[in-house]
């Protein structure tokens, strides 16, 4: 009876087996995206809403490769810089697929792509009022994460490092504080670059992680997707297993008695 079987994550009353959420941006093409997604065994994918290209209608369509019936689409508001834009975008997303579960992302500037927390809180309240299930991309300030929780979000998504930076988790203490205080799933979003970064996030107690660039920009995205799948499982198991205590000195693995050389 393995832990994986039972250890589900629940977001907005929906149960998921995978704790890895995958973004669909930056892949060389939709075919590699599709294969990487399969390899990742993720159940939720983030997607963006953009204008249809009127001049070239034969461009490949995301939905031709990734089936909204098979995966839970998580429409994001990437590119929105205020609550009004975010709201407009997600209403279109709802019309597109009838989704209520959305990823709110209100950015402050293009250099850091850090969230504008004031606008994010503001937008979260409006979206919740409109009946959306809001998963909120946010900074790693436990205080403001709590405000988002109180605003009725269904998941807190603090950043580990700037989006697409691959720098890992810059402030593990803050992530830990957010997890300790939160009654919601805490999903590490943004900044993860390697398997060990993802594993560490789970070891800190995150309920899931969202990964995009680290997979899409790998030399071998499909294998990297597998890597993250395994890293998330490993990190989750490690968290549940209860790690050994750190020691500043050595502690022998082999008994130091009954040696040949004892008198």
């Amino acid at each position: 009876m393995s832990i994986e079987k039972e250890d589900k994550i629940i977001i907005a009353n929906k149960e998921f087996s995978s704790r890895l959420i995958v973004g669909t941006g930056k892949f060389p093409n939709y075919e590699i995206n599709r294969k990487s997604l399969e390899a990742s065994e993720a159940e939720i994918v983030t997607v963006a809403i953009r204008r249809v290209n009127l001049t070239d209608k034969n461009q490949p369509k995301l939905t031709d490769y990734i089936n909204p019936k098979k995966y839970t689409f998580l429409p994001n508001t990437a590119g929105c810089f205020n609550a009004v834009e975010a709201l407009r975008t997600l209403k279109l997303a709802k019309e597109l697929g009838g989704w209520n579960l959305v990823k709110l992302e209100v950015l402050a500037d293009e250099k850091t792509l850090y969230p504008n927390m004031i606008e994010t809180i503001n937008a979260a309240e409006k979206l919740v009022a409109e009946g959306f299930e809001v998963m909120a991309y946010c900074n790693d300030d436990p205080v403001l994460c709590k405000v988002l929780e109180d605003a009725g979000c269904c998941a807190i998504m603090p950043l580990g490092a700037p989006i697409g930076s691959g720098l890992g988790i810059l402030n593990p203490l803050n992530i830990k504080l957010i997890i300790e205080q939160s009654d919601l799933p805490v999903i590490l979003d943004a900044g993860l670059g390697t398997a060990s970064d993802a594993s560490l996030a789970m070891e800190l107690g995150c309920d899931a992680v969202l990964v995009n660039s680290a997979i899409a920009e790998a030399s071998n995205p499909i294998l990297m997707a597998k890597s993250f799948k395994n890293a998330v499982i490993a990190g989750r198991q490690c968290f549940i297993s209860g790690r050994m205590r750190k020691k500043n000195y050595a502690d022998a693995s082999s008994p130091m008695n009954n040696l040949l050389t004892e008198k």
Partner: protein
Amino acid sequence: MTQNKIQVFINGKKKLLEKNKNLTEVLKLLKITKNGIAIEINSAVVPKSQYVNTFIKDNDRIEIVQFIGGG
């Protein structure tokens, strides 16, 4: 602008249309199929069911969107 034409913005680009066209006709004109898209006119979403009853007016700002890859 000529009497029987109106000017609209579709995905930010200026376009001239015949008067009294509904959304369904506009999509046909643009050779865009209904599925996998959503439409907003002047920042208000138009449900698919209403395309046929939605007539485009002068200076309407029409947004036609779809899902694409994103993180």
